[in-house]
């Protein structure tokens, strides 16, 4: 018999006007938001984590605080780090090595085209080996930079496959102009799947200094711990040393020392905040949607009062009438949820593809079927619950009055 009521409800829904469908917008938006968020969330998290490339492993990153501009890390800060700070960090016991990292923005010319991007220094000696190890990729063509290379650059993957806008692939042996100075390309880094690394120009320290003339300034310091298990303590020690070297009091630090865990936690906290906000918006939409369903079902009961009378006169018990309106209301919610789930999935897949296209990552979209089933069941229940009061109203109609219309 329930099957018959479903079929009756479907027939009634088919003949509904646009007004009824508009009330589903709330449920639709809510379910779309949740499904899209979950499909995208994975991609977002992986994408952001991927951008950290180097710092994902056991290394402490030190930067100057109070970033005021939108340039690369370390630029536009109130008081940048300098070589004294680097020396101070190096002296901290438990620090195996402290590496100076400078990143500068500049332009690269090739094939009569100009692109703007970032250049990063590569230190000498063992530090160089350490940085290459941290990059975790081999050259896909040519070789890495080595000590003593001058007038040479090593490029990110996107230059090799012409994804930077030069209209021509760059291969090792070619010459490019960086800030109007000619450099020979010695090699290309394999694809990192990170927007930053795949577009980066690597340069030996000396060349960097000469080209950008940043003098004593240090953008970030990478500190490798002797014992990776004591990151937290080392972080405190470095903070102490830097407070002394920079002459600031505790609590007034103009620098930041972050461990990879802490960075990831920060990002996750941010992502969680965004997720919580979207879920809140989704819940509000669903709530509004539920009220919309109450409204449209109440109107529907009034409009169909005569039909209720007819049904009762031909033998419908109160519970039959209740069931019919209840199921109809649930189906109304389910349809909103279904359309929302489809839209959410499309947004998730499209968004993931857009992220992949933008930063060159290869994240596969996350279609969460259990979540979608849960969302569909949930929207049916929300619809049905919203329909309880109107359905009870319908069921309680006196047949004589109802027949009169």
């Amino acid at each position: 018999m329930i099957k018959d009521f479903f079929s009756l409800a479907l027939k009634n829904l088919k003949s509904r006007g646009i007004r009824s469908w508009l009330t589903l917008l709330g449920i639709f938006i809510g379910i779309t938001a949740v499904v899209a968020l979950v499909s995208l969330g994975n991609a977002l998290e992986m994408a952001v984590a991927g951008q950290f490339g180097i710092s994902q492993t056991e290394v402490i990153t030190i930067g100057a605080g109070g970033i005021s501009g939108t340039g690369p890390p370390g630029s536009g800060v109130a008081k940048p780090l300098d070589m004294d700070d680097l020396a101070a960090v190096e002296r901290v016991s438990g620090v195996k090595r402290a590496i100076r990292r400078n990143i500068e923005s500049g332009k690269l010319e090739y094939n009569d085209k100009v692109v703007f991007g970032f250049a990063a220094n590569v230190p000498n000696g063992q530090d160089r080996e350490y940085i290459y190890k941290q990059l975790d990729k081999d050259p896909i063509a040519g070789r890495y930079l080595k000590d003593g290379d001058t007038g040479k650059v090593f490029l990110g993957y996107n230059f090799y496959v012409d994804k930077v806008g030069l209209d021509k692939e760059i291969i090792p042996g070619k010459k490019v102009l960086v800030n109007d100075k000619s450099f020979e390309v010695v090699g290309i880094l394999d694809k990192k799947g990170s927007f930053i690394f795949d577009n980066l120009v690597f340069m030996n320290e000396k060349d960097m200094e000469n080209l950008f003339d940043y003098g004593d300034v240090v953008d970030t310091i990478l500190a490798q711990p002797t014992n990776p298990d004591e990151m937290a303590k080392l972080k405190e020690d470095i903070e102490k040393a830097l407070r002394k070297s920079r002459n600031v009091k505790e609590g007034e630090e103009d620098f930041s020392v972050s461990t990879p865990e802490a960075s990831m936690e920060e990002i996750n906290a941010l992502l969680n905040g965004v997720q919580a906000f979207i879920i809140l918006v989704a819940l509000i939409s669903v709530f509004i949607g539920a009220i919309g369903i109450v409204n449209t079902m109440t109107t529907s009961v009034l409009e169909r009062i005569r039909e209720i009378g007819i049904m009762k006169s031909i033998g419908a018990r109160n519970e039959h009438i209740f069931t019919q309106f209840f199921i109809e209301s649930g189906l109304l919610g389910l349809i909103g949820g279904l359309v929302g789930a489809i839209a959410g999935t499309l947004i998730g897949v499209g968004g993931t593809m857009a992220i992949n296209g933008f930063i060159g990552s290869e994240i596969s979209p996350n279609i969460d079927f259990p979540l979608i089933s849960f969302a569909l069941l949930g929207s049916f229940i929300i619809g049905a619950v919203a329909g309880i009061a109107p359905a009870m109203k319908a069921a309680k109609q006196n047949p004589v009055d109802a027949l009169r219309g």
Partner: protein
Amino acid sequence: MDKKTEKKVIIELDNVCKYYKMGNNIVKAVDGVSLKIKEGDFVAIMGPSGSGKSTMMNLIGSLDVPTRGKILLDGDDISELSESDLAQIRGKKIGFIFQSFNLIKNLTAKGNVMIPMIFQGYDAGGRSFRAEKLMKMVDLSERMDHSPNELSGGQQQRVAIARSLANSPEVVLADEPTGNLDSKTGQTVMGFLQDLNNKGKTIVMVTHDIELVKDYPDIVYWLKDGKIEKVTEKTVKRRTNIE
């Protein structure tokens, strides 16, 4: 031998009253009516508007319960039943035909005929088979899949007749069955009712149309101000050419 005395009483009204409150006044829509409707009777309840015949119809059809008095449907006192039990009994024992057809517009003609069977728990196969048989009986086999608004008034009323018979009720209650039809179509519809009665179905018709009353029913209760004014009985039954 008088066979009528042996016939089973299907509906019995015993001093039935139905009062409504209208503002400060009490309206006595039905005021102390007693009657017996027997199996196979063709009964008409006749009266001008305001005479209480619609209320009578609702009471006989167990759509409403009396303020006072007793209504026995097939021996059961309906004034003591819950609304849902009333619905169950009504669906099983009474078939309704309304002046304005009252078909469900979202369903096909056949779907309308099947609806009362859902409430009695028929399975889908049984419903379909019976609905087709009934549609054939009212000569609408070709129109089964049409929706009510694709049918003429007369056709809609014939679907309503088929629907009223869905659960093989004891009584068919017709409320001004020809009220919305032209006289020729009205005659066709009345022909179907007469035919049903000839086959033994009890028919109760409520009308204000004196012409209908002349031709079809065996017994006519004349209602005025909620009371039975007179009862007329016909001895020779009219035969129709519809078989």
